[in-house]
């Protein structure tokens, strides 16, 4: 199989990188655009009238009409969409529909959720900082010690944990650590304006819940990826030529299992976002997840739309960062196609 050797053009090494990044960036923008369409269409699916739903029992023709005007619901759909998007791009998240329905002249969303956003970010960061090294570490250990008891323990435990939803894990943890041992509080309520870090004890169970839920999947996938790499021809050739096992594990195995692992971890972090919604609810933690759930319960359309858009942005950003990492790790991708 003769392949023609690709010439290495040193001076142009920068541009494939930039072009790749540029393409991904464009893709991210398109994804966000489409996401906004989906969010808009999804929330507007109501067969009936949006305003009436928000007002619920308080709805009568007069209040409905007033709310229509306040929320611009009397305009055609595409116009509403454009208004919303332009507002977002200017940093204006709109007004809360429920707030308006209660008679306020304006109920800007950002002040309503800014605290919640910070709280969620703190929770997510702590969990992520723990999850990434643990996933990688335990996954690699399980792969390298494949077939021996640490692998069995890790594999079985993760198979079980992967099956449990966050609310079950959370409830079980509460059962053990609060009801049983009375070591930790069952709720993680934070007063508005206070920081969750003031009383870190409250964060232990929520973080533990999120960790257990996301670690399981991450470990299994990292392990699988690492095993695949350990069985490659180049690992065997290196070993057969006497290269030290340590070097083989680090530079031949792990280094080539990283790109997949990065994508796995990114996907896990994305799952984390869904997990946060539930976990905040289990522990009554005032984060963006709780806010979202309350908004859905109240049918606060505009709030749901804006929060969803925020979450979509984080989601897409995670993908982008992961892709860029992978590109840096895989030399082949830096070549012109």
């Amino acid at each position: 199989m003769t392949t023609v050797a690709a010439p290495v053009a040193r001076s142009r090494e920068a541009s494939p990188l930039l072009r790749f990044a540029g393409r991904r960036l464009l893709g991210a923008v398109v994804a966000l655009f489409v996401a906004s369409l989906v969010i808009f269409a999804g929330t507007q699916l109501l067969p009936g009238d949006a305003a009436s739903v928000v007002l619920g029992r308080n709805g009568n023709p007069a209040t409905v009409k007033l709310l229509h005007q306040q929320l611009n619901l009397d305009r055609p759909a595409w116009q509403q969409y454009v208004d919303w998007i332009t507002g977002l791009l200017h940093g204006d998240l709109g007004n809360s529909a429920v707030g308006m329905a209660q008679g306020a002249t304006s109920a800007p969303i950002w002040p309503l959720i800014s605290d919640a956003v910070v709280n969620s970010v703190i929770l997510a960061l702590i969990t992520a900082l723990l999850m990434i090294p643990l996933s990688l570490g335990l996954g690699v250990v399980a792969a390298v010690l494949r077939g021996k008891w640490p692998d069995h323990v890790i594999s079985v435990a993760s198979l079980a944990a992967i099956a449990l939803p966050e609310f079950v894990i959370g409830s079980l943890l509460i059962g053990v650590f609060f009801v049983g041992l009375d070591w930790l509080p069952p709720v993680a309520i934070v007063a508005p304006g206070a920081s969750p870090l003031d009383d870190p004890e409250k964060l232990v169970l929520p973080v533990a819940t999120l960790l257990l839920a996301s670690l399981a999947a991450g470990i299994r996938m990292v392990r699988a990826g690492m095993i695949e790499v350990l069985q490659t021809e180049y690992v065997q050739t290196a070993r057969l030529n006497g290269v030290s096992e340590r070097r083989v594990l680090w530079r031949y195995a792990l280094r080539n299992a990283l790109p997949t692992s990065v994508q796995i971890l990114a996907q896990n972090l994305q799952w984390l976002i869904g997990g946060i919604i539930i976990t905040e609810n289990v522990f009554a933690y005032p984060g963006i997840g709780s806010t979202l759930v309350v908004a859905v319960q109240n049918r606060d359309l505009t709030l749901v739309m804006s929060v969803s858009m925020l979450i979509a942005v984080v989601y897409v950003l995670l993908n982008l960062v992961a892709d860029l990492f992978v590109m840096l790790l895989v030399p082949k991708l830096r070549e012109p196609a």
Partner: protein
Amino acid sequence: MSAIAPPSAVVRVDGLTLALRTGEPVVEDVSFSLGAGEILGLVGESGSGKTTTALALLGYTRPGVTWRSGTVEVGGEQVRERDERSLRSLRGRVVSYVPQDPGGALNPSLRVGDAILDVLRAHRSGEGSPELVHAALDRVELGGDAGFPRRYPHQLSGGQQQRVTIAMACVCEPPVAVLDEPTTGLDVLTQDRILFELDRLRNEQGMAMVYVSHDLAVVARMADRIVVMYAGRVVENAPAADVIERPRHPYTRALVAAIPDFRTPRSLRGIPGVSVGVGEWPKGCAFAPRCEHAAVLCEEAVPVLADAAPGHAVRCCRTHEISAPERAESTLRSRPVAPETAPLLEVTELEARYRSGRSARPAVVDVSFAIPPGRCVALVGESGSGKTTVGRCIAGLHRPSSGSILFAGNWLIADAAARPLDVRRRIQIVFQNPFESLNPRHQVRSSIARPLRVLRRLSRRDADAAVGDLLERVRLPKRVAERFPVELSGGERQRVAIARALAAEPDLLICDEVTSALDVSVQAAVLELLQELQRELGLSMLFITHNLGVVACVADSVLVMDQGSLVESGPVAQVLEHPQHEYTRRLLSAAPTLADVAAGA
């Protein structure tokens, strides 16, 4: 045990027996030795245990395989009874490894210079000098470009990659190297260069090599001594020239007779039956079930490896009674075609492109040829020459970008689905990979019946009856119809694929490298079958291959392609004996042939 190893032997294998944990032996009582600067060819087909034996020299056994008995000594050091750490000190320093597939054997995220450095550092602590790396690359003719060590494997060609792995194996100057079919995946021309390099290395460094291969012709060129293995045992051990010219074991004889060699074209004879796998070894000689000289004694006990002549050991109890094989007649075919006969297939100025992603590069450029009825035309070229694409265009699997194909005087529509039923029936194709030609979920019966139902519109009952006849025609027992492909061997599967193609009663059979993935002995049998079928049925064949030896045995005329263009065409005898084009000449001189051993090339 035969030849006593001279004291200067750099490799000494004595009575090596490896077995599965459940007890079945994988290789048994293997003994041979090698002196400094000698090349030993370890030859055998799949299941012979040659790779297992070679890897044992590095102290490596596949998971599940254990050392039962015997010793292995390389460079004066025992290999057995060592833990991982001490084995590692041996590997690369005393005995090194050159893998089969260089593309997969190099770390894709490591620059090649660093990869070579890794092997150096493993054995000479601290000494990570770039000069030594450069010297190693120089030795394999890659030292010209100063920036070369900074390249990644994917930036190199197949030949360059293989030379890097050879450099890795030589950098610590070990006395022995184990090469596991190092040129199998390479083009003939590239293979030629690599073999040349290896020979040079042996002369300059005095490195001994154990060269594992299934290709006797390649081994004939390189090796000083050949060890032939069958079903885990050594069956013949002799100097290379002796093995080729005076093989004394029936298996070796059959193997030599089965190798297609364009310098001595003759009818090939396959070996009937199938090789035995681990755990299926019969009580006596493992080859007896397939041997035409087998006697009752052969099935009673395993023959002992003994010298039949000085330095020539054979494991056969009847070797003295078997007469030497006759030199087969050279039978280059050249049946003349009556000039008025209208060609069955006429290709005119065919052009085709190969699309990958968004770009398209030319695969076939201005190719024109004709196939007369009842004749076999061979289409020869290396990978990337476009020969497969030509075949696929004719079969309707690839749309040409311009040019025309006439079949029986009518224009051939590009897409098979758009062709009339009759045309679809009359052109059939058999593919290369026996493991993919048949749907693993369908019984053989179902696979063969399909064209009977679709292309000949037979009823279910008629189709079922025809299946049995077709299986007979390809020399397979009727009960194969009930089997699933996974239960059949590679050769059997190809026969089923041929039966399926014949089911349509075609006029033109396209054979796309149909024997390339098969063992040599099986290949000979399949070629034999194809030749008979062609004669009996008057089939026209387009035989696509890269193996010139096969061309000589099977074809009436030959077309040579290089990078999409047709560079030479003509009757087989003419092209092979008096090649006109430069490329054809290079191809012919690079192709390994058994005659090399006599010339001591």
